[in-house]
């Protein structure tokens, strides 16, 4: 084999292992040492070693095991190097023993779920949990995560480092919580994945590759959790919700990049495979008999997808689901969407009555969806002057160019 061919092959093999095994290898190394940063460093050195060695000697039969052996050795070297300053030799030996204990030639145990629970621990800053999971499980670098979460790479890098230090120094455990704590702790993990998806979703045109990928990565993580915890209904519910949302990606923008609201989307553009998968997940979740926020939200999306088959969303059912969701997890978003559904069934005045009021919740004053919903309902009820005012505020609060254009078009269509 000539060296160039060998190099390409090694690169391909390394890329393939990186995609399939990165998170698994980090989880294996980090869960035994509590040290995510050291695990990531050791693994990246192992990948570098692979790229220099595999082209010369050919790819090993078990690339995953090869990488783990090298990373493990690097990690033990680093701990030994620190020993004079920070650790006693007993401790080094016990870490070395623990790292050496698992065989490398057989299946490496999958501890990604345990690592996700560590990354989304309630003792960590809520805003860093999703970035931690994206970095530890998927290997995304701070710059990519920062651009998806609209912060600077330096600031994101610092906060990731701080979170890893806290995991190590406070001994945050790497394990799936016990049965009785699982629902609450799982919810934190699912929320972090949902946050990652939402960040990816804010670029619906898919023009920004980083953000589009983030939505795909979030679906990958939701799929992973639902496979590792197949009898947790909320894990299935989250995956169903994300698939329903993702199924409409192509329908959310016109060919010229204009925003298309759900009601006007061409349902034939929706991805039927994703809808079918979401429906079957939701069906499985409901058979487990414990309702939750993500299942309800997925069920609402499913009632919208009803339009595929009947040409019309199932509004009475959607309102019922919003009632249930509001009782379980009251929030302005839920209240606003519920009001919009009520308007569909009982007219715009009933919808306006159902909208939450700014007097009751001052956060609404700068909440774009509130003003957009209000503007739409006022328009339909014929209160054009008030509608114009509401549109103006909604436009002023919107950060997505396409949505801004859509709202401006609606406003200028109002009768004088």
């Amino acid at each position: 084999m000539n060296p160039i061919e060998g190099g390409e092959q090694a690169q391909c093999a390394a890329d393939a292992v990186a995609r399939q095994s990165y998170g698994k290898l980090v989880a294996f190394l980090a869960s035994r040492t509590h040290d995510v940063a050291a695990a990531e460093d050791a693994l990246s050195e192992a990948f570098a070693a692979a790229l220099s060695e595999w082209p010369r000697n050919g790819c090993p039969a078990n690339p995953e095991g090869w990488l783990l052996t090298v990373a493990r050795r690097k990690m033990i070297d680093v701990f030994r190097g620190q020993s004079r300053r920070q650790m006693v030799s007993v401790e080094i030996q016990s870490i070395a023993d623990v790292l050496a204990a698992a065989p490398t030639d057989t299946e490496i145990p999958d501890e990604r779920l345990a690592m996700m629970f560590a990354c989304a621990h309630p003792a960590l800053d809520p805003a860093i949990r999703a970035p931690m999971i994206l970095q530890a499980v998927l290997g995304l670098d701070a710059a990519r995560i920062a651009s998806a979460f609209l912060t600077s790479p330096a600031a994101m890098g610092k906060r990731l480092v701080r979170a890893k230090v806290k995991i190590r120094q406070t001994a945050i455990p790497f394990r799936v919580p016990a049965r009785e704590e699982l629902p609450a702790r799982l919810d934190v993990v699912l929320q972090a994945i949902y946050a990652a998806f939402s960040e990816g979703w804010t670029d619906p045109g898919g023009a920004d590759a980083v953000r589009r990928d983030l939505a795909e990565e979030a679906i990958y993580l939701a799929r992973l959790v639902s496979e590792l915890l197949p009898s947790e209904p909320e894990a299935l519910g989250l995956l169903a919700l994300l698939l329903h949302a993702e199924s409409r990606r192509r329908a959310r923008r016109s060919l010229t990049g204009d925003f298309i609201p759900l009601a006007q989307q061409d349902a034939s553009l929706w991805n039927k495979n994703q809808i079918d998968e979401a429906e079957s997940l939701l069906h499985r979740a409901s058979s487990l008999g414990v309702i939750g926020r993500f299942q309800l939200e997925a069920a609402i999306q499913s009632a919208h997808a009803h339009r595929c088959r009947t040409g019309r969303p199932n509004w009475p059912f959607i309102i019922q689901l919003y009632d249930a969701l509001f009782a379980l997890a009251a929030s302005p978003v839920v209240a606003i969407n519920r009001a919009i559904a009520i308007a569909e069934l009982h007219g715009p005045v009933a919808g306006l009555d159902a909208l939450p009021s700014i007097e009751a919740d001052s956060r609404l004053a700068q909440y774009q969806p509130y003003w957009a919903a209000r503007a739409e309902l006022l328009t339909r009820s014929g209160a054009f002057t008030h509608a114009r005012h509401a549109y103006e505020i909604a436009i002023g609060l919107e950060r997505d160019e396409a949505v801004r254009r859509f709202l401006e078009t609606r406003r200028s269509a109002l009768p004088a």
Partner: protein
Amino acid sequence: MQYLLLLHANESGFTNMTPEQQQQGMAAYMAYSQALVEAGAMKGSNRLRPVATATTVRVVDGKTQVLDGPFADSKEQLGGYFLIDVPDLDAALAWAARCPGASHGAVEVRPIWDMSAA
């Protein structure tokens, strides 16, 4: 792994209680300490006298300053601590949640910096 549970609470809460309530409160702490000992997690514990008895000392430019009062003037004061030895943070947080102080104040959980390894 050792953690210090720092109990912060508004002192007037205790002084405003009836003697019976105070006794009940003390009994809750006794039971909690007993449970920690039973579990083999107890390393040490003390209750502090009120902040009215606190004196703060600093040496500035070689001169010792002694001030009447606590270091931090806040609504909730450090009133005591438990030093515990448990496997990980989740275990420490579980003990913190059981502490009677968590119900009438706040419990700060801090890992001990093991200097013996230095």
